[in-house]
């Protein structure tokens, strides 16, 4: 149980006020830890410093750099480094939890600057890149300082072992399963309906695959409707859709958490046609918790989250014919949908924060054994000793 009260410093590499999976994870984790009585300080870049919750410390304004096929809003440089050092020096932390420490960001800076118990969580899953072999030797001594490494999925762990030749403990991302389990089915979204949530303008979210599959689906299920929720401008996207099918699509815009819960319990199928770039698939975990029957592409992250098809149906990624086949199959078979949804809901409990935070906390406990808190590495004894010994010789 969470008995010992710790002072934990968490570093979030991405801009706090920009949407993203890592930010949500850090926010939920910090709030959960605070609720269980620990004192937590989060260091993160932020655009608007006035609107931060009181446990967040701003490290400055983030800058946009292209990274891993997307634009990352991160922060580094001498001023940021000074702020990181100041935060560590004044924080008096028992333990630091760095998120995504292998990308150029304040997490990496914190890893350089600090000495003591540190835990790192690796979120990203990427294909083997040549560039990593060039920067690997630079990263290695820093990553080595982490007492324990956590990967959010098997895919993220493989990325880590591939790139940095170091192992990690897999602890999944957390969700508040209860928030999604009490949704009420809404008539407007019920029937032969397919749901999709995400930034549909991004190609890697794969809405196009679903659009391509629809002509076939319509032939077998003439009354099918697709509801797309998520931020973005549907006008450009609608142009791509066959005019005859355009009225099948309804764009709901960004929806609230409560609406999300209702959405998940209303739609017949929740489809996640992502083509890649996904490391864990938090939205799938939420869909399962909401009691939706899930259809997802068979990218590694989804495959392992859905237990190879036990907790939701899989289709061959980027293959719209296969997607259509799977969807038609399930739309016709209500019993099969129910079986999958029930198995999925049970599965989702494993990702509940109650479970996940407990796992993370037991990692913290292992991290702090024998440590005397986090200090700044610049008070490096052997480095100073070396210098003074040198002077004596002269």
């Amino acid at each position, binding site marked *: 149980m969470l008995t010992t009260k710790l002072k934990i410093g968490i570093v979030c590499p991405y801009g706090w006020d920009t949407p993203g999976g890592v930010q949500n994870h850090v926010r939920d984790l910090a709030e959960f830890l605070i609720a269980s009585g620990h004192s937590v300080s989060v260091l993160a870049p932020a655009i608007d410093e006035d609107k931060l919750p009181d446990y967040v410390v701003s490290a400055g304004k983030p800058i946009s750099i292209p990274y891993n096929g997307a634009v990352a809003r991160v922060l580094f440089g001498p001023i940021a480094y000074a702020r990181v050092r100041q935060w560590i020096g004044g924080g008096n932390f028992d333990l630091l939890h760095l998120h995504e420490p292998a990308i150029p960001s304040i997490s990496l800076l914190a890893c350089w600057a600090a000495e003591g118990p540190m835990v790192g969580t690796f979120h990203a899953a990427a294909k083997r890149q040549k560039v990593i072999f060039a920067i690997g030797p630079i990263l290695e001594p820093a990553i080595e300082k982490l007492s324990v490494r956590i990967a959010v999925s098997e895919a993220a762990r493989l990325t880590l072992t591939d790139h940095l030749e170091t192992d990690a403990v897999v602890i999944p991302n957390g969700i508040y399963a209860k928030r999604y389990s009490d949704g009420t089915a809404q008539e407007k979204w019920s029937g032969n309906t397919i749901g999709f949530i995400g930034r549909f303008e991004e190609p890697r979210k794969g809405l196009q695959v679903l659009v391509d599959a629809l002509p076939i689906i319509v032939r077998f299920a003439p009354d099918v409707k697709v509801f797309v929720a998520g931020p973005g401008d549907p006008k450009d996207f609608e142009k791509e859709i066959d005019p005859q099918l355009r009225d099948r699509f309804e764009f709901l815009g960004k929806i609230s958490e409560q609406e999300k819960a209702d959405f998940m319990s209303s739609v017949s199928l929740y489809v996640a046609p992502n083509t890649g770039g996904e490391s864990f698939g938090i939205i799938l975990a939420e869909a399962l918790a909401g009691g939706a029957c899930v259809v997802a592409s068979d990218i590694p992250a989804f495959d392992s989250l859905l237990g190879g098809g036990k907790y939701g149906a899989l289709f061959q990624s980027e293959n719209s014919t296969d997607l259509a086949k799977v969807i038609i199959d399930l739309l016709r078979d209500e019993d099969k949908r129910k079986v999958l949804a029930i198995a999925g809901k049970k599965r989702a409990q494993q990702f509940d924060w109650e479970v996940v935070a407990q796992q993370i906390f037991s990692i913290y406990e292992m991290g702090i*054994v024998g440590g005397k808190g986090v200090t700044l590495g610049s008070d490096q004894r052997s480095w100073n000793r070396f210098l003074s010994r040198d002077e004596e010789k002269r």
Partner: protein
Amino acid sequence: MKTLLFLGFLLLLGLWYLSFSATRLDRLHHRVETSWANLDVLLQKRAAIALEIAHSDLADPASSMLLTGAAYQARDADIKNRSMAESGLSGALGLLISDGLPHATESEQALLQELSALTSKIRVAISIHTDAVSSTVMVRRKFVVRTFRLAGKAPLPVTYEFESDVL
């Protein structure tokens, strides 16, 4: 003058690198020790639970004997035989649990639950420890470290061949 300056710069750089490597190695040794201390505590706890199970009604006299023996062995083993003794204990526990579960009372259930929680912690602790050991060994094989004896008198850490499937 210029060459002297340059040489001085090189010397400083070399010294910095040596100190950097020494710090790094020191940190790694520290990590090996703490992760081992961690694992050791967990394993001791497991042996204690195993004894408790052996003395409960869960175990028939024969498995009780087997378990008690294995638990004592695991506790007393010196570093060389430790991993073998622990694997023996894992085996004995596994044997019991695979057929001893159905007629467990509530307090025994709690005991078994404690054991399974401990087991997952041990699994994590093992992976942390082996990782620390392998990175230390890797750094110690480096040319600079060997030539300048940066490791000092610290013994080379040994990998413990734990059965990765403890239970």
